[in-house]
C-alpha cells in the first residue's frame, strides 16, 4: 500500500472528528472519500498532510510508519493536498504561487524569473491551462485558482495527491479538464484521494469508495460494487427517503401573471455586468445559467447593491431603488447569499447564534437593545428547520463543518423575512443530504410566495431547481427559457455556443 492509516483518532475539544479510521490508498488508484458534512473527511486529510497531528492510531507510507509534523514534511515525503478552500496567495502571481518555496535560482541565491516563468508556462500548458503566469492570482476566477492549485501539487512530484472537493468551484467545462488531469495522474501511478459531494463525479473517476460517517469508516468498496442507493444510505446512515429524490418543480403559471418580486432593468457594473434585465415573479424560482465567469456573481452583487451599479434600475416588490445598498435591499425584502462563505459570509470569531441573526439585529431589538429571548427563538427555529448540526447556539461558527456553516448563512438570509432571495451557489461544498434540504428549502420559499433567483456551479442543479432559466453570457442576458423538461446537456451546449469550441480554463 502506498498510504495506510490504522485506527486514526482525532478530537477537537468535545468534538470527536475521527474515531479509529482505517484507510488505504494504492498506487495508481483513485480512492473516493465520501460522507456528509462534518463526517470527518477534511480532518482525515489534515492528518494525512501533517496540518494536524492525530490523537491516536498510526499512519504508514510504503508500509513504514510515518508521521508528519507539517505540510512541508508531508510534501517532502510525497503526500500533498489541494484543500477544499483555495489555499494560495491571492496577491502574488500565478508563477509565484506555483513555485513558492522551490523557485529556480541563479547562483543558488537569486530567483531566476525568466526560467521560473518558462517553467510555469510549461506546467500550465501541460494541463492545458492557458493562463499568463504573470497574472496576479486574485484576478483569476475561483475555478482557475483551484486548477492552478492542483497544477502546483502535481508538479511537486507527490506520489499521493489529495483533492478535497476540487470541483466545488469548477465550471462544467473545467471539470472535464480536471478529469483529464486525474486520468493522467492515475496512469502515472500516482495515488489519489478524491473528496467530493458530487456522486456522479465519484462514479466517473474513482476506483474505490470509502464512506465516513461521524468520524468512523462505514464502508470501503470498489466503485462497481457500490450502487448509488447503497452509497447514499451508507453516508446518511439510513435509506434515502423520498426527500432526497429531486421533486419536479411545481408547475407554474407564466411570469406575466405573477406579481413581480424583483425586476432588474439595464443593469451595468464595470465590464462584468453589461446589460442585465430580468424579472422574478412571486413564487417563482429563476435560475441564472452561465459559464464560469459569465458574471453571475457580479450580477447578484450589483442587484443587491454590494457593488454600486453604474446604470440600470432595480425594483423590489415593485418599488424601484435608486442607489441600491445592501442595507436598503434587505429592508425592502431582498436577501442575498454569497458564494464565498469564508470571506464574505461567516464571522469566524462569533457564535452560531450571532452569525445566524447578523442581518436582523434591529428586528430582534427594541430601542437598540437586543432581545435575547427573540434571538434565541429565532436561532432555535432555524437551527431546527434547516437541520444545522451544532452543539448549541453559542458554539463558535468555526466548529461547524462547511456544510453546516452554509446552512447557518442560509438561515441568516431567510430570517430577514425576504420577499426575494438571491442564492449564489447555495450548495457549494454541501453534502447530498444537505443539498436536498437546501433544494427543499428553496422550493418551500417559492411555494410560500417568495421570488428566488439562484445559480449554481452545477448546471444540472440550476436546471433541476428552477422554473425558468435566464442565460447570462459575458455579463449580458442572452436568452430565457422555461426550465421544465430541459436537458442540462442541451443547456450547456447552448451556453457554450458550440460545445466543441468552448475553451475551458481560458482566462481572458
Amino acid at each position, binding site marked *: 500500500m502506498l498510504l495506510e492509516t490504522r485506527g486514526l483518532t482525532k478530537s477537537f475539544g468535545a*468534538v470527536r472528528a475521527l474515531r479509529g479510521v482505517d484507510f488505504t490508498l494504492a498506487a495508481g488508484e483513485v480512492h473516493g472519500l465520501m460522507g456528509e458534512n462534518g463526517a470527518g473527511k477534511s480532518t482525515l486529510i489534515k492528518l494525512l498532510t501533517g496540518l494536524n497531528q492525530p490523537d491516536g492510531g498510526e499512519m504508514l507510507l510504503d508500509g513504514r510508519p510515518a508521521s508528519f509534523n507539517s505540510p512541508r514534511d508531508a510534501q517532502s515525503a510525497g503526500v500533498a493536498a489541494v484543500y477544499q478552500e483555495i489555499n494560495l496567495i491571492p496577491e502574488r502571481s500565478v508563477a509565484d504561487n506555483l513555485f513558492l518555496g522551490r523557485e529556480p535560482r541563479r547562483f543558488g541565491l537569486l530567483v531566476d524569473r525568466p526560467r521560473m516563468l518558462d517553467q510555469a508556462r510549461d506546467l500550465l500548458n501541460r494541463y492545458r491551462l492557458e493562463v499568463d503566469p504573470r497574472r496576479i492570482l486574485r484576478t483569476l476566477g475561483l475555478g482557475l485558482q483551484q486548477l492552478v492549485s492542483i497544477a502546483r501539487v502535481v508538479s511537486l512530484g507527490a506520489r499521493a495527491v489529495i483533492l478535497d472537493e476540487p470541483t466545488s468551484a469548477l465550471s462544467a467545462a473545467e471539470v472535464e479538464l480536471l478529469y483529464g488531469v486525474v486520468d493522467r495522474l492515475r496512469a502515472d501511478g500516482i495515488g489519489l484521494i478524491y473528496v467530493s459531494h458530487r456522486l456522479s463525479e465519484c462514479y466517473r473517476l474513482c476506483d474505490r469508495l470509502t464512506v465516513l460517517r461521524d468520524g468512523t469508516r462505514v464502508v470501503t468498496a470498489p466503485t462497481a460494487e457500490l450502487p448509488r442507493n447503497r452509497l447514499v444510505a451508507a453516508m446518511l*446512515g439510513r435509506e434515502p427517503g423520498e426527500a432526497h429524490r429531486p421533486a419536479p418543480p411545481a408547475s407554474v403559471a407564466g411570469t406575466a401573471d405573477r406579481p413581480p418580486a424583483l425586476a432588474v432593468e439595464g443593469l451595468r457594473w464595470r465590464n462584468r455586468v453589461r446589460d442585465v434585465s430580468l424579472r422574478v415573479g412571486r413564487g417563482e424560482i429563476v435560475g441564472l445559467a452561465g459559464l464560469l465567469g459569465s458574471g453571475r456573481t457580479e450580477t447578484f452583487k450589483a442587484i443587491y447593491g454590494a457593488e454600486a451599479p453604474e446604470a440600470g434600475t432595480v425594483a423590489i416588490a415593485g418599488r424601484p431603488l435608486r442607489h441600491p445598498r445592501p442595507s436598503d*435591499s434587505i429592508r425592502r425584502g431582498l436577501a*442575498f447569499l454569497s458564494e464565498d462563505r469564508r470571506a464574505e459570509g461567516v464571522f469566524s470569531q462569533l457564535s452560531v447564534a450571532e452569525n445566524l441573526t*447578523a442581518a436582523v439585529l434591529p428586528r430582534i431589538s427594541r430601542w437598540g437593545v437586543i432581545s435575547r429571548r427573540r434571538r434565541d427563538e429565532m436561532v432555535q427555529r432555524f437551527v431546527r428547520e434547516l437541520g444545522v448540526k451544532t452543539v448549541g447556539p453559542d458554539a463558535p461558527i468555526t466548529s461547524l463543518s462547511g456544510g453546516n456553516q452554509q446552512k447557518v448563512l442560509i438561515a441568516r438570509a431567510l430570517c*430577514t423575512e425576504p420577499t426575494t432571495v438571491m442564492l449564489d451557489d447555495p450548495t457549494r461544498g454541501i453534502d447530498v443530504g444537505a443539498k436536498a434540504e437546501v433544494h427543499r*428549502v428553496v422550493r*418551500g420559499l417559492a411555494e410560500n410566495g417568495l421570488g428566488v433567483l439562484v445559480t449554481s456551479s452545477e448546471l444540472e442543479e440550476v436546471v433541476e431547481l428552477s422554473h425558468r432559466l435566464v442565460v447570462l453570457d459575458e455579463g449580458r442576458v442572452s436568452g430565457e427559457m422555461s426550465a421544465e423538461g430541459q436537458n442540462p446537456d442541451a443547456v450547456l451546449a447552448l451556453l457554450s455556443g458550440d460545445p466543441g469550441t468552448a475553451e475551458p480554463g481560458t482566462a481572458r
Partner: protein
Amino acid sequence: MSGIVSGMPPGHASRPAEDRQPATTAPASPPGPAAPPPRRLGAAALRQNSVYIAFALLVAFDLLVTPGFRNPTVVRSLLFEAAPVILIALGQSLAIGTRGIDLSVGSVMALSSATIGLTMDLDQGLAIGAAVAVGLLCGILNGMLVAWLRIAPLISSLALLVAARGLAQAMLGGARVDMPFDGPLSTIGQLAPGGIPAVAMFSLLAALLFSFVVRRTVPGRYALFVGASRTAAVLAGHPVRATLGFVYGVSGLLAGIAGVFATARLGAADANYIGVQFELDAIAAAVIGGTPLSGGRISTLGTVFGVLLLVVLDASFIMNNVNANYAQMLKAAFIVGALFLRRGAA
C-alpha cells in the same frame, strides 16, 4: 413572525434533523438554553482569568511588602490615577474590537485639556462641555478617515496623535493655565465620597454601560461584526461606515472626558504633559484584559482590570523606590508575562 421555511409541506422541514439525530453523537442543537462547552479547570481557567489572577497576586504582594500600601487612601489615590485611563482603554478596546486601533487618545486628552484652558474663564461648565465636544469631534474625524477614506486606523490615528498634540500646544501657546480653587473642575479633581473618587465611579459606571452597549445593543454588536469581517458585515446589510464613525466617535468622546478628568486632577490645563503615551497603556491594558488585536471580541471587565493592573504596577515601583529604568523593564516583562499566560485563551 411566521416561518418562511415552515411554509414547506408539513413535516418536511424539521424531519431531517430529527431523523439524523440518532446517527450523530454531536447533539443537534438542543432546544432550550445552550449547554456551554464543558469548562475544564486548570490551565484553561488560568488563561481565561490571567488578568484577574495577576492583579490579585500583585495586590497581595503589595500588601505584604510595599510600604504604605496598606493605607486605605491608596485606593483613593490609585483610582484617581486609573479613572481617565479606564475611559480611554474602553474606547481603545472598542476600536480594537473592530480590528482597528486608536493611537490618538493621549493627544486628544491634551486637546481636551487645552480647550478647557481656553474656555475656562468664561464658564467652567461650558469649558467641560467644550472639551468633551472637542474629543468627540476628533473621534468622528478619525472615524471618517477610517470609514469613508478607508485609511488604516493605525495611520489615521497616528496623524491625529501628532496633529492634536500640536494643536493643543498651539492653542495654549506654551503656557499652562491654572484653574481656580473652586468650581466644578476643582470638584471633579477632588471629590471622593467614602474614599472612592467620583471620577472613578464615573469610569466604572461608564464601563458598565459600555459593557451593556457592546453585549446587548445593536451598535455594539455591529462593531464586533465589523471587526470579525468587514466584507461579511457589508453584505449582511450593516451600516459599516456609520458603525466605524460611532466607534471612533466613542473613543474620542471618552478621551475627551478623560482629558477633563486629567485636567481637573492636575489642577491646570496643560497641553504638554497630559496623556503622553497613554495610548500605549490603554492598548496594553485592553490586550492583557482579553481583547485580541485580531478583532471581533471585547472584554470590558478584563480591560478595566488591565488598567488597574498597570496602575498598581506603576505604583508598586514608585512606592518601593525602584529606579525608573528597572521599573520600565520590569513592566515590559510583566506585560509579556501576562499575555503569555493568556496565550491560546479564547
